[in-house]
């Protein structure tokens, strides 16, 4: 009866973890090449925000110690861009699930982590593209880096890392709600208060007291403050450490949660 005896499972090489994730990343990115309108529309919104805040609200928003509002704005735009972009992670996973792709992947001898790693990585690549585009648009309407090249690169890197952390939250949501429309809706609702009740567009000091206490610990606030220091100059250590701590905490909580959801995805 013990037909299994003597069939030891072969060890899988560690490098497959990376090559499998790379294969899935490539597959996800093909989508943007094949459906360019997808990328186009996901960039229109942040571009509108840059223009809207610069020309419509910018004149009415006075930030002490800042000459040009657009300089203040760009750090907020970067954070907002990567967070909005990361909401697509859950949508993509829900889509794969409803189309049977996740079943196919789970029946293959590939690394278990590859689907989630590939998805969050490809969304990070997409975020990089949109962030670069935002910087171009920002530059066209008067934004300048004031702190030098290395901090500028650091700002882009921090924004991407922040987006990656949020991608894992989004992955968890997408795998939990399972269908595409719900993932789309559920992916956005919690993002708005986080982005707007923060220092992204206005100083926290201008908010009512009760909101300030939320806004001050908001991960978006600390990250925007760090991005602002990296783009405009000023004290960097404290906001940067706070932001990195948030990123680490989000990853620590949501990577295992999302992986767990993925394991039972078929349930």
């Amino acid at each position, binding site marked *: *009866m013990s*037909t*299994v005896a003597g*069939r030891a*499972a*072969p060890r*899988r090489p560690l490098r*497959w973890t990376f*090559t*499998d994730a790379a*294969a*899935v990343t*490539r*597959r996800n990115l*093909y*989508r943007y090449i*094949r*459906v360019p309108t997808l990328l186009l529309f996901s960039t229109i919104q942040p571009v509108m925000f840059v223009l809207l805040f610069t020309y419509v609200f910018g004149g009415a928003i006075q930030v002490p110690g800042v000459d040009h509002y657009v300089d203040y704005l760009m750090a907020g735009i970067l954070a907002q861009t990567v967070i909005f972009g990361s909401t697509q992670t859950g949508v993509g996973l829900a889509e794969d699930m409803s*189309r*049977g*792709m996740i*079943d*196919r*992947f*789970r*029946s*293959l*001898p*590939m690394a278990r982590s*590859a689907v989630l790693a590939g998805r969050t990585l490809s969304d990070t690549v997409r975020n990089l593209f949109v962030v670069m585009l935002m910087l171009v648009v920002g530059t066209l309407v008067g934004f300048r880096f004031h702190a030098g090249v290395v901090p500028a690169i650091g700002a882009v890197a921090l924004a991407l890392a922040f987006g990656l952390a949020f991608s894992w939250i989004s992955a968890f949501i997408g795998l939990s709600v399972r269908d595409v429309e719900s993932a789309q809706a559920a992916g956005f609702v919690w993002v708005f208060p986080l982005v707007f009740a923060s220092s992204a567009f206005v100083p926290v000091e201008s908010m009512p007291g009760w909101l300030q206490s939320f806004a001050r610990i908001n991960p978006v606030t600390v990250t925007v403050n760090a991005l602002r220091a990296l783009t405009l100059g000023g004290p960097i250590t404290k906001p940067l450490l706070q932001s990195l701590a948030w990123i680490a905490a989000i990853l620590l909580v949501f990577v295992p949660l999302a992986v767990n959801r993925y394991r039972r995805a*078929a*349930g």
Partner: protein
Amino acid sequence: MGDDAIRTEDLRRSFGAIKAVDGVDLAAPAGTVLGLLGPNGAGKTTIVRILTTLLVPDGGSAQVAGYDVVRDAEALRSVIGLAGQYAAVDENLTGRENLELVGRLYHLGRDEARRRADEMLERFELTEAANRTVKTYSGGMRRRLDLGASLIGRPQVLFLDEPTTGLDPRSRFSLWDVIRELVSDGTTLLLTTQYLEEADRLADHIAVIDGGRVIAEGTTDQLKSRVGGDLLAVRVTDRDRTAEAAAAIADLGSGAPQVVAEAGEVSLPVREGASLLAEVVRRLDAAGLEISDLALRRPTLDDVFLALTGHVAEVEADQDSAGTPRQGRGRRPARSGA
């Protein structure tokens, strides 16, 4: 018994209060085709999902190609292929890219993955469409591509979950040819289907599944003989009196008559068929029942299903009309009448 490519013992899996798989024993010797036949919701797909490691069973055990589906799940995945109910191919990739992706994930290496992809494209007559995105493919082409993807890794055991559901007859026949060819290569195949004819054509051994259990199994011939001899089928004009007609001729048969009131049809297993025809006509005439059709025929698997479950195989089960429409899943009746 060590030669069984698929073997399950008392396999169980529930979803909440629903026992989707309720104590299933299956065995398929290497190189054979096992057909799981049953209506929607019978538990066929759940069995396939357990055997392909997508789902962990609640109880019982299952081995595929000698690997335990739970303990050796990881190793098992490299020797199986799965084509599920929906063509799980990426619309935004070309046919070739889809196949190469799957090849890479079987860890074939770049050149080998490319070579296998070309082989599959040729085998499934997709070479011309190879560099088009799958979005432009027809339902039949997607299914063929999906089947190709499931074969990329040269699986020892292949699982096809309703491979022809939603295909037009022509695509279905051509897929049958492909599947028959596959099996002649020595691959063990587990196939689920709602189409009785499909199981009849393709499977060496059939397990009839209903309500999460195996209610009958055997070769096509064995199953047919369960109905016993020939079948005498009578249809009466007045459908409301079908039961009356069944009662009038019941004692002529070798088994109980089966009644399909909606069709006004009674089928009766009989031993010495031809000599009874006149008697049947006499009795129904005496009862004042008008006969619209009378025939003597060999039993089909439809009859087997009816004899085993007491109800017709519900191919057009309600769950689909209520479900969301999916691309390439247009439903069609299996077979009407016999």
